[in-house]
């Protein structure tokens, strides 16, 4: 059970759960696998995300993203969150909400797919390097097929996966309607290959994995 003085702000994603614990105004950030969240028996003060178990109050993910990235939105960045299974973004103009979108159907070209590819081909994330070439992954499944084709023809898996990631970055740029500046939220902030790829198209500011929990806390 929560101690009286503790507050928990939780972004429970499909694979990873981001937690901000506040104790006597002291902040503590943690990431755990979402499969373990249930075992912790935490009652969140406020939460967002598909995998949340118990919370006093639920907030929409795009609203949490907009709150967490508000300072950057006011500075004309588009806030983009690339998650395990979906991509969402929000844009302000003249200090007010202007536009947003959320890919709601195909999850075959997001974080979980990259994690599976790394495991499948036994490639370390830090070995991925930006490649100028990219796969066209309008359909992620076709993209996976291209990786398998190229690897079977002798291409190193880490190169093929990097091309796939460049494709994801290009899709994200198009999905956000080709902005000049993107501030990035989510696990892809740790993926240098993705950041480098996205930088081919616009200015990129990685904000890390805790944007949404900061947005939940900031609302309170």
């Amino acid at each position, binding site marked *: 059970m929560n101690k009286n003085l503790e507050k928990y702000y939780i972004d429970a994603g499909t694979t990873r759960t981001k937690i901000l614990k506040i104790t006597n105004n002291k902040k503590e950030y943690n990431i755990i696998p979402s499969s373990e969240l249930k075992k912790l028996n935490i009652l969140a003060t406020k939460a967002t995300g*598909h995998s949340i178990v118990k919370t006093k109050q639920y907030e*929409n993910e795009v609203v949490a993203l907009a709150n967490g990235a508000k300072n950057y939105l006011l500075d004309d960045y588009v806030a983009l969150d690339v998650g395990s299974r979906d991509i969402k973004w929000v844009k302000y103009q003249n200090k007010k909400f202007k536009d947003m979108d959320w890919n709601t159907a195909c999850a075959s070209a997001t974080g979980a797919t990259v994690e599976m590819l790394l495991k499948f081909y036994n490639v370390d994330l830090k070995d991925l390097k930006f490649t100028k070439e990219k796969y066209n992954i309008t359909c992620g499944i076709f993209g996976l097929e291209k990786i398998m084709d190229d690897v079977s023809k002798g291409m190193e898996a880490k190169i093929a996966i990097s091309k796939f990631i460049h494709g994801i970055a290009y899709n994200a740029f198009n999905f956000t309607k080709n902005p000049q500046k993107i501030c990035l939220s989510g696990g892809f902030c740790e993926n240098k290959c993705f950041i480098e790829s996205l930088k081919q198209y616009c200015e990129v500011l990685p904000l890390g994995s805790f944007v949404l929990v900061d947005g939940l806390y900031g609302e309170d």
Partner: protein
Amino acid sequence: MKKDIIGFWGYPEKNIISKIKSEYPFAKWIDLDIDYGYPDIKFLPENYCTIMKNIFNNSFFLKEKLIKILAPIGKDKCDSAYFASEILKKQGFDIIQTVFEDKCSDITKIKLPVSKSNLPLRKKVELITKNIYEQKDYSTLPQTKPSFGFWGVPPNDLSILELFPDDTHCYGWIRAVEAGYPGDFDIETYVDKDVPTIFFTQAFCSKTQLAKYLANKYEGLFVDIDTIPSNSSKAKIEAFLKLR
């Protein structure tokens, strides 16, 4: 089994509705566009417009009870409906093809008591589609100023309409139906430009191009949903309603 049902889709031409009503005064009218949960007979391709699939699933499930199907095939429905009507004819259904492409001479004078009312959005859409054959007078319903707009056709899963506030107005084909001009392009594409609007389309429907075009033009939110909306689809709509 006694045949006692008149099936229809879209908005059949008014005079034909009146004629069939007088010929079969005790028949029950069933809107074949709607998902009643009847078995999927897999007649159409897997990835195809859910509304067209509903038409086939409902028609075959009710075949023994259907007297006739009134089948709009004009611009008031869609091209798929024409093919559906021809295929169903070959499958032994009694089909009356209808075309209801009347143009309104002055769209500023159309009456939209339900679309602009204070009823919950789902209730609005249900009343408008029911009124195709019931033809009741709703002119005394309290009217509202719109906080949001919902553009499109009645969704396969009407639960998404429950996300909207009651002062959401109906636009698109739903509005054109209430106005009595289901094939009037000007009514269908009319939008109040200052009202934040969600442009909904059923996946694989040809109206998708119209929804996308209008969403870009009026800076609304384009939403396409297949059979049942995912949590993300619902959350996307919720976010738009909260942030606007």
